[in-house]
């Protein structure tokens, strides 16, 4: 059962990592324009290269 002492922190840590990533995305305005983000990949931005 000692494996639990290792696995549970790993499981929780990964979950928290995901949660932190989500909060980071939320703060950085990644959810401000969901339609635009979906369409933006279709744009050619040669002038910016």
């Amino acid at each position: 059962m000692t494996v639990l002492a290792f696995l549970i922190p790993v499981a929780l840590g990964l979950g928290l990592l995901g949660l932190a990533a989500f909060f980071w995305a939320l703060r950085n305005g990644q959810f401000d324009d969901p339609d635009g983000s979906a369409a933006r990949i279709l744009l050619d931005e040669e002038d910016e290269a």
Partner: protein
Amino acid sequence: MATRPILPEATGQTMLVVPGMHCAGCMGKVEQALGELPGVTGARANLTARSVTVTHASSLDDHALVLALEAAGFEAKPRRELPERHLSAARPLLAPLAVAGFAAMNVMLLSVSVWSGAEGSTRSMFEWISTLIAIPAVIYAGRPFFASAWKAVRRGTTNMDVPISIGVILATGLSFYEVIAGGGHAWFDGALMLLTFLLAGRVLDAMMRDRARAGVDALLGQAARGATVLREGGKLEWLDAAALSPGMTMRVPAGERLAADGTIVTGASRFDQSLLTGESAPVPAQQGDTVLAGTLNLDAPVDVRVSHAGQDTALAEIARLMEASTQDRSKYVRIADRAARLYAPVVHTLAAATVIGWLLAGASLYKALVIGVAVLIITCPCALGLAVPVAQVVASGALMRAGIMVKDGSALERLAATDRALFDKTGTLTMGEALPDPAVLDALPADAAEIALALASHSKHPLSRALARELAARGHKAATLTDVREEAGFGVFAVHDGARVAVRRPESAAGTAVALDISGRPTQLIPCADRLRPDTAAALERLRAMGVTSSIISGDNVGAVRDVARATGLTAQAAATPLDKQQVITSLRHNGAHVLMVGDGLNDGPALATASVSMAPGAASEVGLQASDLVFMQDTLLSVPRAVGAARSTMRIVKQNFALAIAYNLIAVPLAIAGLVTPLIAAAAMSLSSLIVVGNSLRLVRAAK
């Protein structure tokens, strides 16, 4: 996004609304057009909000940006400051949802280990980890519910959030006690799962509302306008409507709407007041006459001395009428909260009776309390809490795909009860603008049509614009013209292949028409009229079949209203003032009718706000868009019966959902009262009932057909 070297000048930021931007290509063109403008350091389009944020040198003004976009083929308006309620409703719920989801998954994982037989110190460690995750998560993710429940309780009422909050808090508290005392009943997973499900439902609901609001806001932003002001010394300057003040002189070109009330100082023209009064015939005005904000200058440029601007315009009275009726509507109690009023006392009495019953039967206080909490948790309104929002989200999504925006959460509930519909005439039953006769356009020879299109595209006159649009829609290409010249109020004159051609005002003014001159051929007269919306007859027939009685109430003169009444077969009231319309609706409502008002104009504003529920076409005035619950974007009037039908299907599904939730309770509650429910059974039962309710609601996907 086009980048440029940063300029040393001070920079400013401007947000422009671009309603016509709807694809990746448009977004690219908008950003490029603005990026190429000297002084612009950055332009970032937001497709969801149909807007673009421009960073630019402060020497550059809004009008230059608007002109640059116009050159690229996009109509744009600077965005005004919007009131706070327009902020996203979904954003503040995303973080609680993420926390609840994370905590629910981890606690569930630990609970599964406990259920599958973890013993001794392992079990107690799992329970303590669950506690450490669950308690902060419940406090954080439960705040939206606790806040709303507390507000209701303080006002002495109850809503759906009250039983939810009581259930969650009791379950968490009891579980904490169980963990400390080493009992066997930790319900953290159930409480967190409940929060996750309910938050997910609310986030979806709020997202749908946000999208509808963004669509309507884009239209509203477009309505925000300004005027070219004539300064001393003949300098012309573009000012925002908010910056206009009495005493200024605005120059209003043909085809532009007035931004303020005023008196004409030079020039004469005709004005379209249909948004203001419902009157469809243009009103002539000349030097010394008063003209009102919101009217459209049809023929010739005029100079107008501003008498009232902003909030002092003639609209103030209409705004006051509307204020009073909006308060009346906020008294509406949503069906979920009505259900909660019946449900909460029953459940709470039942739980209390269970505790007393077990005590009388000789159980210990602790055991009686555990069973009482089990009753509260098993009846926890998971399915009930989802019954209404999920159905409304699915139905609103279906309606949005059909071009109908549902602005208000309770609008579908109120719309479903409709048994009486009142239609405004100009702009609602009709298209609200004079359109060229399609039969005459179809009969035009192809070369004549090409010349007419070329000529019309050189003018901003509303009739020219309509003519150009209709001809282009028929697949005609513009012919090549030379020496094009527009004479304001008369027409556009040019030369094509050596022949003099013109689109102009006809000499005899019998009704509205456009004359097409091609030298060497007889003059072709194209009559223009305000036509009924497509499918009007079919739409009214469908409403009749649904048991909705329709009639017309219009501010236009008797003759014009009679024609439309005859064409549609409806009874009509003509020459109604905004107050008349409001009073008619009030008296209908006093007689127990559920009135749907469909209107577009400023004069319909009070009526839209007074009616049980209201709809406006996308081309409606700012006031119309704001006062209505639903906005339909397509031309066809079939949107109205479609929305009513979808609302009724939604209420049917909501009632089924309630029935399902009650049926589930009828099975689960006796088990809970008998003390047979464990946390495992509770978790399974709650998920199952929620899935059934969600599945049933998904049947509304095709509701807007």
